[in-house]
């Protein structure tokens, strides 16, 4: 009897249905997103307008960037609690550089992203080299960055130049406004978000860094024993999260203008929730950038849509909680069914 025959004794894997192929969780997420949008269109007055659509997109940029970055960290089996406060800290520091030290705007923006990457590197170093649990390492960074923002600005708020000002050009990265254009503006930030998501999905699925991040999230020891430098790639995941927090800072500044020190807490949980709703597993090894974006848009639609049906935005939290639990439970059920 050959190995082939023995192997044939095991029933072949069932043909993957569309459901399994796509992931129940992501499918649930897409359906939830569509259902929510349709619901608000029907129930809310004036929800189904171009301007509302743009404001949904506007509120998705910074959480979207944070979530794309944090997806990589979660795939390693880690967590990044600091991405929200890193974002605000970067926005505060580069804004201070611009207003107090008159550093050119283009340099401020580059520094903003670089600083994010540095904070990310610190997280990665603490986790991969020093061996701290990711929860603790990034909790520490969360507190440090939140404090640092207040120290640098002496607790004063920082205001970025208006669109009309000479250095307000950077707002055009995320939205172009002007005569002859719709009053809500053209949401170029959406394009940027999608382009970056496509690039990062490609990095995750088609390049070595992505493959090794998935591998070490699945089984770190096995990856190490395969001759892969797990330290390097684990750090990289945190650096990616940091760089995207820096980018999120720019989008945050361009949409909200005034940045308050001491804020930023809670954004990381929105980012993590979006990631998890999108099908990334908190135990590592599984995740997708596309899923993450869907998760983020669900939260944006909720946030923007609830006032249209007479509920305050804080109901967003309430409903996001439900979506989160339902989406993850659907996945748990599906895995249980596959096992049997």
């Amino acid at each position, binding site marked *: 009897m050959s190995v082939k025959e023995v192997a044939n004794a095991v*029933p072949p894997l069932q043909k993957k249905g569309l459901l399994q192929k796509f992931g129940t969780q992501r499918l649930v997420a897409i359906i939830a997103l569509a259902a929510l949008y349709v619901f608000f269109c029907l129930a809310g007055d004036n929800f189904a307008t171009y301007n509302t659509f743009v404001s949904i997109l506007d509120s998705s940029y910074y959480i979207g960037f944070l979530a794309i970055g944090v997806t990589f960290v979660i795939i390693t089996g880690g967590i990044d609690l600091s991405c929200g406060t890193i974002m605000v800290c970067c926005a505060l520091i580069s804004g201070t550089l611009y207003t107090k030290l008159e550093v050119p705007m283009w340099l401020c923006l580059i520094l903003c992203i670089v600083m994010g990457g540095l904070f990310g590197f610190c997280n990665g170093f603490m986790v991969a080299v020093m061996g701290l649990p990711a929860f603790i390492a990034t909790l520490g960074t969360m507190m440090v960055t939140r404090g640092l923002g207040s120290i640098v600005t002496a607790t004063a708020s920082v205001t970025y130049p208006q669109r009309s000002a000479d250095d307000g050009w950077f707002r055009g990265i995320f939205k172009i406004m002007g005569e002859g254009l719709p009053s809500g503006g053209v949401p170029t930030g959406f394009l940027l978000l999608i382009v970056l998501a496509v690039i990062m999905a490609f990095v995750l699925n088609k*390049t070595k860094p992505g493959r090794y991040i998935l591998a070490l999230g699945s089984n770190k020891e096995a990856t190490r024993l395969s001759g892969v430098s797990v330290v390097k790639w684990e750090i990289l995941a945190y650096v990616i999260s940091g760089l995207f927090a820096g980018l999120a800072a720019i989008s945050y500044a361009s949409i909200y203008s005034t940045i308050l020190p001491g804020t930023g807490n809670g954004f990381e949980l929105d980012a993590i929730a979006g990631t998890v709703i999108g099908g990334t597993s908190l135990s590592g090894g599984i995740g997708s950038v596309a899923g993450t974006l869907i998760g983020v848009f669900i939260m944006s639609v909720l946030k923007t849509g609830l006032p249209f049906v007479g509920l305050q935005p804080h109901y967003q939290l309430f409903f996001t909680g439900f979506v989160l639990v339902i989406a993850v439970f659907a996945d748990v059920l599906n895995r249980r069914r596959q096992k049997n």
Partner: protein
Amino acid sequence: MSHPILVMDAISKSFAGVHALKGVHFDLMQGEIHALMGENGAGKSTLMKILTGIYARDGGTISFEGQTVDYKNPRDAQEAGIVIVHQELNMMNHLTVAQNVFIGREPMRGKVIDDSKMNRDAAALFEKLNIDINPKSVMGSLTVGRQQMCEIAKAISTDAKVIVFDEPTAALTDSEITDLFKIIFDLRDKGIGIVYISHRMDEIKRITNRVTVMRDGEYVGTIQTADSTKDDIINMMVGRVVYEDPKSHSEVPADAPVVLSVRNLNSGRMVKDVSFDLRKGEILGVSGLMGAGRTEIARAIFGADKLDSGEIRINGKPIQIRSPQDAVEAGISYLSEDRKRFGVLVEKDVATNMTIASLNDFITGISVNKAAESETTLQYIQKLRIKTPSAHQQVRKLSGGNQQKIVIAKWLTRDSQIFIFDEPTRGIDVGAKAEIYGLMNELVQQGKSIIMISSELAEILRMSDRVMVMCEGRKTAEIPIEEATQEKIMHAATLRE
């Protein structure tokens, strides 16, 4: 065979002041299969981990192809041509088979991984090795035996000059082993040096050229396999001869009461209409190929998987088992084939592990009575001769044999009546194996009953009073030990519908 390709000399290594290796010598010829043997804790794995750069040595020299070498990490060793097939499965379960096989050396097209080439290469590799596995399957969906074949394929595909096999057959069935040996002979004929670690004496006699024996971190000696008997090797390892003959007849009286009766059991797609009885004081051996549904039966009886239909009676009374908790309360214990995942809490100490299933007996008021816990633990450490420095040693640091004894002790504290042993001696060395067998015999003498699932025919024939054979989820034979032969069992194990 020609000149040595690898020489390790006077290798020493300590962990936290404890000598794991003391001046160990090992050499390997080109085109040789060289067995490395020794009891658990003898230092075989440590020696091989030093060779492959996973541990740094404290002293000694390694020369490979005539050059003194010093590998700092697994990658250095791999690039030089030394690879190891680990005993513990090291798989990225979420990745595909091909992604696992080519991890760390993916075929690239510029900066992009060429997945289609990778899948083709993997398919070609499997074809060459006569393994039928789809390279695109997710690793976690394969059985343990097939994962092991992937791990072997991975090592072979690196164009290695030296391959270390650390108990490669522990998870394989007899026919898979035959195929593995073909692969190994093929590699040997190509001039590759092979280090073969195994506890199975038959395999050693069958395939190796030389045997090096280690004991307690020291080098005992190297002998030509052809010039030595099994007993010679075992004597070098432990200094005593271990009884290895099959059981000739059952001591269980024909009218012994039936303690467990299973009728028309169905569960998932791996258990189909299975019925059997288990008598008091009996060892029922369950044999079959990988994927025959043996473990699944055990899991269904133990309430770990859902029952679709069927009846289970204990001492004649019908019983509903909906969860492992129900099973434990009904007096059933299950010792999993995968100790690390389901058997022991590796991060916890010996005492915690032993009392976890019977913690209620150790509670005074609202807290755990540490004194009672320690006392019971020490009692079992002595009784089962568990080699541990103390009751508070972390289980991770103990050998496989000792971990298995801890699992047995855990269930002994529950005073179970029915024990299901799933591959009880997998990855356990000869000495500890004999002790586990001794324990099982003691249990049945005390009137307890055992269901023993095993892939090793020798083990089935040695321990069972009756043998139940399975194929594709169905029971295909039930053979009293007096009539059981390897041929009969293998025949029933391949009886397909």
